[in-house]
């Protein structure tokens, strides 16, 4: 079962609809039992980091998500669902889940780049960094499966003012350029999370979701 965690942050229906479109049933829930029983947990979300953490705490979902990830269950984070995986965010000076080492920082530009970073931008698969570990069953070959059929520099839809800075460069699955080169998705064992919105990225986004769901055997 695929569950989409409902913690009051943003439009879960559009995520659910994109799963429906690729022929997969996904249940929207904040029920801890259901989440723990599922085989793929999806955490979407738009809005502010501190509000997201506050809501997760209120719904007693922090332990649940930690159990899901530490127990090796597949996890898909989208936008805010990526950011909360890290230790700390500059947004509201807030503590995150700390599943991944690193922090969430605000874009700061001296030139004329607008904030939020809103619109379509290139997503470049970060394979060269992993080339030494290439081969069957390696993170690189897994990543290639997840991005199968998606051309390099493919366009995905972004809308955010903060970006993640992982401590370990090896978990960066893709990068995107906006003033700086930032991690637009991360991949670490059972966790895959994107800063962009696959559910709003037309063909590329639906393909990526389908690839990941297939990869997780759901």
């Amino acid at each position, binding site marked *: 079962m695929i569950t989409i965690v409902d913690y009051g942050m943003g439009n879960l*229906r*559009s995520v659910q609809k994109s799963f429906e479109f690729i022929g997969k049933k996904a249940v929207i829930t904040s029920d801890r039992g259901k989440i723990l029983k599922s085989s793929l947990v999806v955490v979407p979300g738009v809005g502010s980091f501190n509000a997201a953490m506050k809501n997760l705490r209120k719904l007693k979902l922090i332990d649940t998500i930690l159990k899901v990830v530490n127990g090796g269950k597949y996890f898909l984070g989208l936008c805010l669902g990526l950011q909360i995986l890290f230790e700390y965010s500059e947004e509201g000076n807030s503590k995150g889940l700390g599943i991944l080492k690193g922090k969430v920082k605000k874009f700061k530009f001296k030139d004329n780049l607008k904030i939020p970073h*809103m619109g379509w931008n*290139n997503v470049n698969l970060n394979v060269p960094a992993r080339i030494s570990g290439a081969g069957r069953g390696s993170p690189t070959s897994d990543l290639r499966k997840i991005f199968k059929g998606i051309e390099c520099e493919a366009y995905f839809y972004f809308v955010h003012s903060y970006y993640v800075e992982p401590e370990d460069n090896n978990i960066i699955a893709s990068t995107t350029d906006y003033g700086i080169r930032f991690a637009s998705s991360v991949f670490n064992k059972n966790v895959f999370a994107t800063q962009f919105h696959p559910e709003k990225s037309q063909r590329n986004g639906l393909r990526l979701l389908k690839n990941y769901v297939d990869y997780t055997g759901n």
Partner: protein
Amino acid sequence: MKVKKSVLNGLTKRIIPCLDVDKGRVVKGTKFINLRDAGNPVEVAKRYDDEGADEIVFLDITASHEKRKTIYEVVEKTAENVFMPLTVGGGIRTLEDIRNMLKAGADKVSINTSAVENLSFVSKAAEKYGTQCIVVAIDAKRSVSKYKLQNTNYCPKWEVYTYGGRKSTGIDAVEWAKKVEKYGAGEILLTSMDKDGTKDGYDIELTSAISESVNIPVIASGGAGEMKHFYDAFEKGSADAALAASLFHFKELKIKDLKKYLLRKGVNIRC
């Protein structure tokens, strides 16, 4: 074909078709009479999706209150079929309106009159739903000033109008744009009332005046009649996105052809 990209910025300029919806149908001409039927919004949205539109805007112009809820059905059906950002505007007055719109599948709502009448509505909405989903629509009209005749260093001014361009407010558009940014708008949808419907190009002065005085994305609107107008909006007007309605509905201009043209001209565009 070499695409010009500034260093470390891959973000593309957006082409946004706008669908004026009246009682569940796409119509042409919001501020003018003689509404022409332009089809079923869900079908039109699907076509734009295929053609490579970057986002879609629905503007609900349904006058009668009881027929208002048809827009929710339109949004819901569209969001089931089209996986791209969807903005809905027209008659958004309460947090409840925003909630219902987002629940139906909209990603952003566009607020106009109610922002002018109650600025704290913008900040409350941004606080609750995030700045990323609050678009403030500004309808601006050039103020004709005596000053213009006397002074060669004439600096143009624009005034904000509400109620679909029927009511003047006396508010300066540039000052207003700065203010709504401060109050939590995530984007500005800027329509030139002077140019709307003329097809002789966007108001470039207005677009650049606003775009350069705020740090949030600005969508240029009103006046698009040919491909070059889009190029000017991006290159001279510093717009982040350009919107057009009837030009796309009646297939006078195909989004695909427009995008190819812009790419050839060196604008960073998603093709």
